[in-house]
Structure formats: C-alpha cells, structure tokens
C-alpha cells in the first residue's frame, strides 16, 4: 500500500501546506558537518590581541588592594585592567544589576572576574595575569540554604540574602487535606549542573573607524547584550554593535552576559581587536549554572484517584548574582503542580543569594527541578491508590476548560492528554507493563 502512488497524492491534497512540515535542510548543515564553520575561537584578525581574565580564588572577601605593575611589565602586554579602569557603571544583571564586570570592593564567588589582561599572545596574557597581586580580607562564606535564610548571617548584597519570596495560593488547602484518602510527603534535592556548551564562552571585539564598538560573540540575544554592554562601559547604545557569531550551544548560559563586556573593554582600552576565549576549566567555573533546589512537597489524592492538594516549599540557590534566578525559581513555583488539575494549592518559593557559583537560565528553567518533585509525588500517590501511574496521570491531567495552578483556563492547545495517550498506545502496542502497581497493595 505504501508504494501505491495514489496514497501519496491523497496525502498531498490533504496537507494544506507546501513547506510547513517538510524536512527542509538547514542552511548551515553542510559546513557544520564538514567542520568548516569558523567559531570565534577560530577567528583571526590582523593586529589582534588576546584577552585573559584573572578570576577570584575565594568565594567571599573584601578586596583591599590590587597590584598590577609587575603584570604590566610583562613583554607583549598592552593592558592590565581592574574595576577602576571601567568607564561605565561596571554593572550588569538580567533581573537586577547586581554583578560587577570586574570586582569592586568585594568578591562574592569564585566566578567573579577581578582583573583583565590583553597581550600579543596567550602565553604573555597568562603570565601577566599570574603576576597580578590581589590583597584580600576573607569574609565568612554563605554556602547553604540555612546560611542564606539566617537573618544574622553576613549579607552578600546590601538587601540581604533572601532576594525574593513568591507565593502561590489557590482554593482551600485545609479542605484539600480533609478530602484526601492518601497523602505523600517528601523532601527532594536537586543539584548544580553546568550547561557544557561544546563551544566555551568567546568574544572578539574591535572599534571600527566610525568609533563603534563591534562585538562578535556566541550569544542568545544581541539586543539585550547591547542594553547591558553600553551602560557598563559608558557608551551610547548606538556606538555598540553586537553580532551573533556561529555558536556552539548555549542552553541558557549565553542568554546572559559572558565574554561581551570584558572583551569590549579590552578593545576600547587598547584600540586593537581583542579575542577572548575561555578554557573549558574557566567555562565550568564562571558564568551561570542550573540552580540547585530543595523542595518539600506534600500532595494528596482522594479515594477515587483525584488530586486534592499541593502544599510545598521551594528553595533555590542562585549564588552570588540573581541573573535570571528570580524568574527561574518563581517559574518553578507556578509549575510545581505539574500538568495536572490541582484545586487547592499553597507553594512558597525563596530565591537565595549564596557565595556559590551564580545560577541562571538553563534549558528547563526551574521546571526541570519542579518536575523531579511533582512526578515522584505522582507515582507514589498512584501506588498508594493501587492505580497505574499512567492512568492516574490521564485522570488528573489538564484538559481544555480546566485551570492550571495559576487559574489559567486551558484552551484547545492543551496537549498533555495526547502525549500520555501516545505513550499508552506505545506501551500497549508492545505489551510493555510496569512492574508496579501490581505490587502496590504490599508497597503502601
């Protein structure tokens, strides 16, 4: 049948589109497959200098003094810069400008940049960076959720260590508890994760003859980069041009500022093209990570297998800078129910500063963590009720006309039931079965 040409014609007349739904080849597929694509780390410009960053080596400290004289004397070095050399605000940050391009009076994590070097080659830049002396006074680092929640602990930023507290309230929690035949309560802990884009952070900057600072960078958003670079470096926005270079993955990491401000500052100060490419080790330490979260969830269901309530707390470690953390953790809170109809909800979330690495956007954006908790809860409730985890989800999933945790009415684009049904069909076609809940009665 499949070789019958009339079948194909019938399908074609059915399809309303010429190009939607077709596997049109990506324009860059061939050059990528051939390894011909030039990433920033491959780019060489005449007169180009190499940038290097001196990172903090302690998580929390006051900077007393930075000596750069010896570094500046290394042959081939064109610039050794600290925060005093930054002509603009020196600040950036996606939710609030709480990060310094170069550390000022304080170091808040080992991901903080303290000084910058530009030199004729990478070896000279590295040598110079190693000769910068930073005199510091250690402060007690804030490393755990409990530290961050302690009102008497040292403040990492002036406003205190609890950056944000959000609340989800829906229905009547006590009523939900009363209507529950089964209740499951657990504490979940998720860990810090790196994006590990194949291409580490990299930028190439030059000032063109019209005085515009051009920055080629593997970024996810050149306009927002420009909005952050210009004030940080004291430039009008129309004197900054950001061009997305071919990118070797970002996964949310390159949503934020990476090499832009540093490489731009070096090009401004040296009036030479400057390239700055992180090593993998630098990439693993600097910039944003996925938030570790602690989640305490209590969830109930009625005897007939309907979800009755969710009562939960989510603590997120956003590290030394908020980046997008406030939105990540707030998003985790409103997605804490998962794709289900839960009538009664109390969820509180806390965005906490620590002296750990800054956490920000990463593929999954808070929902990655929340799903670890809500899906574990769903299976445990199903087992207690002696129901198949698939049937329990099908029974409780959102459908057009039902409302999400925020009271948003679902419309025709609500696809959770279709994805569950697809898995159900897949399993029954292959006679796949869970080992449990057959064992459920003894399990609970």
């Amino acid at each position, binding site marked *: 049948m499949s070789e019958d040409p009339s079948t194909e014609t019938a399908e074609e007349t059915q399809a309303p589109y010429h190009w939607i739904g077709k596997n049109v080849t990506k324009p*860059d597929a061939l050059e990528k497959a051939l390894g011909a694509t030039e990433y920033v780390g491959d780019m060489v410009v005449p007169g180009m200098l190499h940038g290097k960053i001196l990172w903090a080596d302690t998580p929390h400290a006051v900077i007393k003094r930075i000596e750069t004289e010896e570094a500046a004397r290394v042959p081939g070095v064109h610039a050794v810069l600290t925060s005093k050399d930054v002509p603009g605000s020196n600040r950036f940050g996606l939710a609030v400008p709480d990060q310094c391009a170069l550390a000022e009076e304080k170091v808040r994590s080992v991901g903080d940049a303290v000084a910058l070097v530009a030199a004729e080659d990478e070896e000279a830049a590295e040598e110079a960076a190693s000769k910068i002396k930073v005199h510091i006074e250690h402060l007690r680092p804030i490393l755990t959720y409990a530290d961050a929640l302690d009102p008497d602990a040292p403040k990492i930023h002036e406003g205190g260590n609890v950056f944000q507290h959000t609340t989800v309230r829906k229905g009547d929690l006590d009523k939900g508890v009363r209507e529950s035949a089964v209740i499951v309560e657990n504490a979940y802990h998720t*860990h810090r994760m790196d994006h*590990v884009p194949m291409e580490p952070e990299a930028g190439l900057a030059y000032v063109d003859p019209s005085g515009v600072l*051009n920055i080629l960078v593997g970024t996810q958003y050149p306009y927002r980069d420009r909005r952050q670079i210009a004030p940080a470096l004291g430039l009008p926005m129309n004197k900054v*041009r950001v061009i997305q270079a071919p990118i070797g993955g970002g996964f949310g990491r390159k949503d934020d500022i990476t090499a832009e401000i540093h490489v731009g500052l070096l090009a401004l100060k040296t009036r030479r093209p400057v390239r700055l490419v992180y090593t993998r080790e630098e990439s693993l330490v600097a910039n944003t990570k996925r938030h570790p979260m602690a989640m305490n969830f209590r969830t109930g269901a009625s005897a007939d297998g309907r979800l009755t309530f969710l009562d939960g707390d989510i603590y997120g470690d956003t590290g030394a800078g908020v980046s997008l953390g406030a939105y990540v953790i707030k998003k985790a809170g409103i997605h804490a129910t998962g794709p289900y109809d839960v009538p009664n909800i109390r969820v509180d979330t806390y965005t906490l500063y620590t002296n750990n690495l800054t956490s920000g956007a990463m593929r*999954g954006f808070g929902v990655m963590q929340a799903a670890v908790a809500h899906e574990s809860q769903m299976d445990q409730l199903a087992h207690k009720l002696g129901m198949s985890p698939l049937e329990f989800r099908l029974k409780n999933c959102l459908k057009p006309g039902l409302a999400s945790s925020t009271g*948003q009415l679902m419309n025709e*684009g609500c696809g959770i039931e279709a994805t569950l049904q697809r*898995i159900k069909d897949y399993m029954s076609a292959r006679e796949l079965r869970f080992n449990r809940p057959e064992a459920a009665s003894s399990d609970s």
Partner: protein
Amino acid sequence: MAIRKGLGIGSMYYGIGYGFSRADIGSAEIEMAEDGTTTVYSGACDMGQGVMTVVTQVAAEELGIEPDQIRVVAADTGSTPDAGPTSGSRATFVQGVAVQNAAAELREQILDMASRMLECPKENLAVRRGQVCEIESGHEMVSVGKVAHQLHFHGRRAAAWGWHDNTTADVDPETSQGDAYATYGWATQLAEVEVDTETGRVRLTKLVSATDAGKAINPVAVEGQIEGGATMGLGYGLYEQHILEGGIPRTNSLAFYLVPTAMDVPDIECEIVEVPDPRGPFGAKGVAEPATIPTTPAILNAIHDAIGIRITETPITPERVFFAIQEARIRGEFEED
C-alpha cells in the same frame, strides 16, 4: 550480576515564552529583490536548533515562494531588528508569527502591484511557487521577480516589516493567579532502566519521548530537539554534577564533571505529537525545554519500578543507589532476589 529492569514515566508542562510582564517580542524585515530572491532580516539567534530554517519555511509558506529563494540574515544589532532572545522555548512560537506577518504584508504588496500590472482584480490572484497565479484556473500570470522589479522601479522597495508582541502580564503578587503564559508545551517520556543492585549503577536502556510540537514545522529539527533534550536530561539524572566545597569547584574539568557520551545514550524514540495551537505560526510551538524536562523524573520512577526504592536526590549516582539499597536491606524492606 543482579540486574533489575524497570519502566517509568515522567510528564511536564512548561510555560512557553517569558511571562511575568517581561518583553516577549519578535520582529523581522523581509525584502524581495528584482529577481524574486528574498532576504529575511530576523533578529532571532539560531543556536543550531534550526530557527533560521523555521523562519525560511514560514516565509516560504506565507509568501508562496520556494525556500531556496530565501536567505536569512540573523541576530545582529547592526542589520536585523530586535526579535527577543532565543530562550524559553519561544523562538518558533513568537518569531515565527512575526516572520509570518512580514511575509503576509509583502505578499499583499506583490499582489497589489500584480493586479495593476495584469489589470486583474487582486482577489482573483494568489502567489504559488514563485508565480502570481489566477486562483480559478491556476494559470501562472507573472513571476514574483517581475512584480518585485516593478515595485523597486517605482521606489517601493518590495519590503515589509512584521512584528509580534507575546508579552503576558505578571501573575498576582499574593496568589500567583493569572494567565501566566500565552501557551504551554506538553510532554511525556517513558524510560526503561537497568539497575545493578550490587553496584547501584543505573543504565538508561530505552527512552520514548512524546513531545507536543503543536505543528512540527520541520520534523527532523524537532527530532533533533527531542534527542538532544533527552540526552541532556539523561546527563542531569545520572551523571552531571557540579560539586563545590566551601564555595570552591571540585569539578572544574571534564575529567571530573561527567557528561554523557555516545556510549551512554540509548535508543531514543521520537513520538512527535501535534495538538495545534492557534497562537503559534501554523499551530507550532517550542519543544526545546519540554523535550528535556521529563527524562530525569521518568528515570527516577523507572528505578522505583525496578527495585522498589524511591530516590529523592539527584544526580542518581551509583553510590546513592547502592546506599539506598543497603538502608532498605537494614530496614528489611528490600525485595531480595
């Protein structure tokens, strides 16, 4: 060997776009040259996932020309308009509509001019495969290039601008009630694992990913997202952990920070589900994040299915599983072979 097999599922929903009153916009310019070749100036960054290809297909469909006649200039503050970030699984959903709007306006310019050139009512004309056709007969009247040439000749440029504002108001500050996102992504995954009860090692042996794309504009690109997402989810669940001690990283090299290799990635079955969303371009929505979120939960549930033990902390390292088994043994709760 004490290998036990288990199956587990994980589901999720994910608000697509930015929410919280944050600007969630797309915009694009489109221009047709005198030979009918067309350039889309699109601010959206292609991360390798293929939004440039999506932009090409959307413009081709809406304009009625072939994709090989379209070039995309992307993501440069010096030459493209602001299309918001490529994040939040929003590029196809938001920028796709902006490009569709730009292409539709250019098509109307072409049809206006063609109507004058052909002295034929505009409503009788359509653009198909690069030709202005009479709708009734399907007869090809004039190429879009000739029409574009006339537009340029009269200083009209044959160019259009399209934009789309997908910004959604923030939820209530006390209750978080409100329409948080314009739309949501949906996905369910089925994981099959093998747990070695002697070592605690977990292997993912099969993964089935049912991910709702609304409408898959480019199915192979969607499969790329599904396979990449599942691989990243597998890394989160089993391997990748950034360990700090006293705020100092102990995993600052790939010798210590473990990412999945090709040896760790099992067969991934891509089940593309299509529940069209009227607010996306041709019903499409993003899949980047929906494709990665369910993997770790599905593995956690599959481990429970295999050995009857609930792991509540990630990543699911052999040590964690090993000690969980030992603790269950001490409590007399472990189901021995």
